[in-house]
């Protein structure tokens, strides 16, 4: 039994309802002083909701929050900050064009009218030294790597006096090495007596870094366990409710001829910085090439160049021997290039249009769906019905905006639409991000199916496990180049990790 005095935080019977869903259903959660407590669950399990309640972003419908024995009422992130709670969101809350100092003091009430940058810089450095990392207080945020930006976020919360730190999926943007460094920082904080809540759905890292684990599933508490007393497999079962396949069945490759060839591609990113630095890669029919790399090393730009959404300033791209360098997206689609973009609602789908109108986006110009300048909505509807049935997409109302669908069903729709074009080359960018286990399995199986049909698949993913599971060859990307290509069957994770961090060059 744990004594009340060593508990930092208790959340009792927290319930939060959203229209049509119980995001948190009478959840209890207790955090000890000086522990790293992992909050584990699939996407949509209610982890983020629970932590947003703690951060004052949501107000619970029922339940109470007790911090160090006192019942508190958290109505805003400011309230939470006052009680020593600091949250580091998955998407950093930093202003790119401002310096580290300016970001750290942003929203701080205690600062006077005049800002003493020197003293703030000193305090930032002191915090950094204490936890064995370095950061230049005068650097602008956009100049920092993602890992460094995360540290700025950590400093920001510590600067505000946080004693409880919440990290929302902090490793999703880091290399394995950077993640290890982060874990080091977290352990250091723990020894300082700070309490850390670590949100994740990755079993491996949860096992390695946490002291205790609380598992949520579909908004309900599945239990809290000591990390030392549980195995990964048991944890997975708790999280998902059934045994999980850790391996996907896949046949041997029958590598066809070359479908995609990218040669010395050069392109700028949105900020005008060279994002692709003479990159070359080839993908053959009947193989899946996985592109591994830390976010922001040019993966997005690569996908955009191949799909015609970004202009190449140098180099060539050919698809099945035909030069498609800087061709329009339309030409590329007719050349058999299809795309599952990372940003489903930003690039792939049109959120406010209906399922039917989204389904027909690739087909509406074809004869079967038009009558002169008019669109044959009857035919479009029938076509959408076909996709919905074939891919088993759960669509409550065909004419309701597509944004009301769940992430998994949106992705199914997108996948269905693109695959129905009979692609020669399929570019899939983070195709399972934010999906639950069932949908993830479906997407991966579909990709493998396409491969077996002889389609060339380029899979861009931050999830190394996914790449290892699905890909035949792994290309590691760093600073706009492919720094190495390895056979997935003989892949060494440590080696790939080092390549992702730019520490090891090409060894092909």
């Amino acid at each position, binding site marked *: 039994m744990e004594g009340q005095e060593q508990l930092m935080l208790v959340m009792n019977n927290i319930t939060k309802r959203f229209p049509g869903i119980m995001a948190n259903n009478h959840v209890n959660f207790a955090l000890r002083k000086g522990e790293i407590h992992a909050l584990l669950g699939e996407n949509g399990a209610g982890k983020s909701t629970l932590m947003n309640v703690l951060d004052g972003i949501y107000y619970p419908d029922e339940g109470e929050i007790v911090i160090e024995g006192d019942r508190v*009422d*958290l109505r805003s992130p400011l309230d939470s900050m006052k009680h020593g709670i600091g949250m580091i969101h998955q998407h950093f809350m930093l202003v790119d064009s401002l310096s580290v100092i300016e970001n750290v003091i942003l929203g701080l009430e205690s600062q006077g009218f005049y800002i003493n940058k020197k003293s703030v810089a000193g305090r930032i450095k002191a915090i950094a030294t204490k936890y064995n990392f370095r950061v230049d207080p005068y650097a602008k945020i956009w100049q920092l790597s993602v890992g460094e930006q995360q540290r700025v976020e950590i400093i920001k919360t510590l600067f505000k006096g946080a004693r409880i730190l919440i990290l929302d999926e902090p490793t999703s943007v880091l290399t394995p090495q950077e993640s290890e460094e982060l874990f080091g920082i977290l352990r250091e904080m723990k020894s300082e007596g700070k309490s850390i809540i670590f949100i994740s759905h990755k079993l491996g890292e949860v096992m390695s870094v946490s002291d205790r684990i609380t598992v949520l599933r579909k908004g309900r508490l599945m239990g809290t366990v000591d990390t030392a007393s549980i195995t990964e497999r048991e944890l997975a079962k708790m999280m998902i409710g059934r045994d999980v396949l850790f391996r996907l069945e896949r046949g041997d490759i029958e590598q066809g001829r070359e479908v995609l060839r990218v040669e010395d591609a050069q392109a700028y990113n949105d900020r005008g910085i060279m994002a692709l630095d003479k990159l070359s890669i080839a993908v053959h029919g009947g193989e899946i090439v996985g592109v591994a790399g830390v976010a922001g090393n040019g993966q997005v730009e690569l996908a955009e160049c191949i799909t015609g959404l970004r202009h190449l300033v140098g180099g060539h791209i050919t698809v099945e021997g035909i030069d498609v360098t800087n061709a329009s997206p339309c030409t590329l689609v007719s050349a058999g290039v299809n795309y599952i973009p990372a940003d489903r609602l930003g690039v792939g789908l*049109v959120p406010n249009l209906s399922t039917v*109108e989204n389904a027909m986006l690739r087909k509406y110009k074809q004869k079967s769906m038009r009558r002169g300048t008019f669109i044959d909505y009857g035919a479009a509807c029938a076509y959408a019905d076909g996709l919905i049935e074939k891919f088993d997409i759960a669509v409550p109302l065909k004419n309701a905006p597509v944004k009301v669908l769940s992430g998994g069903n949106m992705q199914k729709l997108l996948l269905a639409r693109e695959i129905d074009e009979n692609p020669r080359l399929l570019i899939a960018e983070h195709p399972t991000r934010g999906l639950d286990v069932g949908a993830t399995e479906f997407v991966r199986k579909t990709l493998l199916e396409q491969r077996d049909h002889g389609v060339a698949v380029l899979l861009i993913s931050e999830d190394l496990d996914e790449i290892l599971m699905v890909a035949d060859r792994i290309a590691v990307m760093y600073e706009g180049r492919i720094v190495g290509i390895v056979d997935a069957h003989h892949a060494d994770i440590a080696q790939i990790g080092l390549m992702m961090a730019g520490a090891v060059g090409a060894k092909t």
Partner: protein
Amino acid sequence: MLRFEKRDKTPVRLRVLVPICSVLLGLFVGSVVMLFARVNPLRVYGAVVKGAFGSAYTFSETLVIAVPLILISAGLCLVYRMKFFNIGAKGQYIMGAICGSYLALFGPATMPRPLLLTLMMVLGTIGGALWAIIPALLKAYWNVNEVIATLLLNYIASYILWYLMYGTWRDQRSHGFPLSKSFALNAQLPRILPAPSRLHIGLFFGLVAAGIVWIIIRKTRFGYEGRVLGENERAARYAGINVFKTIIIAAAISGGLAGLAGIAHTSAVLRILQLEINSDYGYTAIIAAWLAGLDPLVAVGVSVLLAALEAGGYQIQIVMRVPFGIVGVIESAILFCLLAGEIVTHYRVSLTRRLTA
């Protein structure tokens, strides 16, 4: 302390109730202002209603104002859906009036009336369309913000009108007033009701235009491409939609309808080109389009209501000797309340107590 949470979807009940309550609240706010001005609000509202709908004649005058609003707002519904924020309907209206009037003033006098009028309307439409294509091209090629470009083009159009009215187009017999000579009968768009009503066949232009724009948006490939583009430009580009072409065509349609409104109003109602050709309808129509939720058919109704407020406003000014500014106050109070109402439809608002700890 107020809390706002985004709604997943808005119940239909709210969609109907909120605007109605907003208008009532706006009228109430307007009443408070009127009480300060020592006017009886009920009498004012009564006068507005009477002034706008009181008789066949007053209603027809309301429709005279509604016609340009309907035409312009129909076009705006189309471009706004593509996220091209054309606020230059005023300038496009003026350019339409100028271009169409050119034929009326300097065209061959012997031309048959139907031909002359058709040419005037076509020329006015082209003038307005060109004035809208300029900012669309600027946006397409140099990414110039269309809000600023269209706004500034309003001033340029106004000053072109000034230049013409004080210069070469001024009637020699106008005693120095900035007026053109009156349009010949051949150049006057027919009115459809007996005098003194000035309601003209432009009403049919407006209704047809609203219907056509509705069909474009809902039923055609162009409308579908435009909706995809407006909601998600990246998805549109990836789908192979020609973004520039779509925006330019939509801008041309919107500008063209504003131009048509300008020449129709000038030719049928004013029958003369002058400095004041009611070009502010170009701004009122923006409000009509937004209040209508960018649906051109709903915009017809909203245009009539806004026109009623305007027509009724003239009336209270004359009958009750209340300053016309009061109408502006009522109009803005209603608008503010409608905009505030939008928040209620999109967010769940609740009252919470500030924590004490």
